[in-house]
């Protein structure tokens, strides 16, 4: 396991290591099954089109989960205390997405850090934005 960041070395403005991810359709289906979200819009292109969508889409919950994983890959498993996300646009599987984060606040008194997180599509659109709070030991 790579070494996790320590609170003492975190600075406001630090960028989390960004992650480029090819969001395969099978991974989206696996998530839909594991998350009890098995419905046409998340599993089948034709079924999704019948709902007026361009094809199957990624569940918002999954994008939030990917961002949570990004944060804990940086801060350590078990450090996430809060995450809030706004789903601004469709995230279509079969394309590369970029997961990003930046430290915005460091609170000495309770050893917490606030992080901006977002997901960019391959067209540079920020389809998911949010913030997270991590608490260090």
């Amino acid at each position, binding site marked *: 396991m790579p070494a996790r960041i320590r609170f003492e070395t975190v600075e406001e403005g630090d960028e989390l290591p960004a992650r480029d991810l090819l969001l395969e359709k099978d991974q989206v289906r696996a998530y839909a099954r594991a998350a009890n979200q098995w419905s046409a819009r998340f599993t089948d292109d034709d079924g999704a089109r019948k709902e007026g969508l361009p094809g199957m889409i990624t569940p918002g919950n999954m994008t939030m989960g990917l961002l949570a994983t990004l944060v804990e890959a940086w801060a350590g498993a078990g450090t996430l205390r809060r995450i809030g996300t*706004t789903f601004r646009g469709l995230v279509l599987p079969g394309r590369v997405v970029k997961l990003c984060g930046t430290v915005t606040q460091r609170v000495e008194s309770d050893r917490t850090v606030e992080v*901006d997180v*977002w997901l960019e599509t391959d*067209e540079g659109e920020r389809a998911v*934005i949010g913030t997270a709070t991590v608490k260090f030991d």
Partner: protein
Amino acid sequence: MILDLHLHSELSDDSRAPVEAYLKLLRRRHGERPLDGIVLTEHRQFDLRRDYRALEDQYGFLILTAAEVETDYGHVLVYGVNEDILGRFDFTNVRLPAQEVIGEVDRLGGVALPCHPGRPTVGLCSHYASKPALEGVVAVEALNGGSKKGEDERVQELIRRYGYGAYGGSDSHLVSFVGICATEFDTAIRTIDDLVGALKGGGYRPVDFRHRRAA
């Protein structure tokens, strides 16, 4: 003087950005985003009692306040909000009549400017395809930090056709994106009245800092 004319703090329902965190970032990244201040444009609300002077003093940035309201021609930023304007319009109404907002805000001492006009379906460009053009529009948001591909480009045609002025703003809802688009003014601005006068008078242009990186 460079100001971000369009951004949201935690007071807006879909923003997660404390004002102080915005200022810390601007201070830290001043080389890439050389702003002198920000104008908070909270959604559908305005509180005359809000006072950011302590933060201004601490961080050395100008902080002004305005509002983003929702109209039958899309969203509009209202600068110079005062008691008369608040008495005239309910900012929580998502169907304000845009022509009245523009005309009355001007009459009552402020200025109302359409924002993100290039958005499909809901932006001013789309409304103009099926409705009469608004009278009294001074400027429109030519650069919006949240625009998708092609949206800001649509606005250029609108500006050419109607002779509108152009301004820029980040439309930031996250700390990280403050100041990525802004407006550069030829004159110094110290107060909201200065800003209203400058917006009505001209001598400004949108500026784009989206692709700048620290050296």
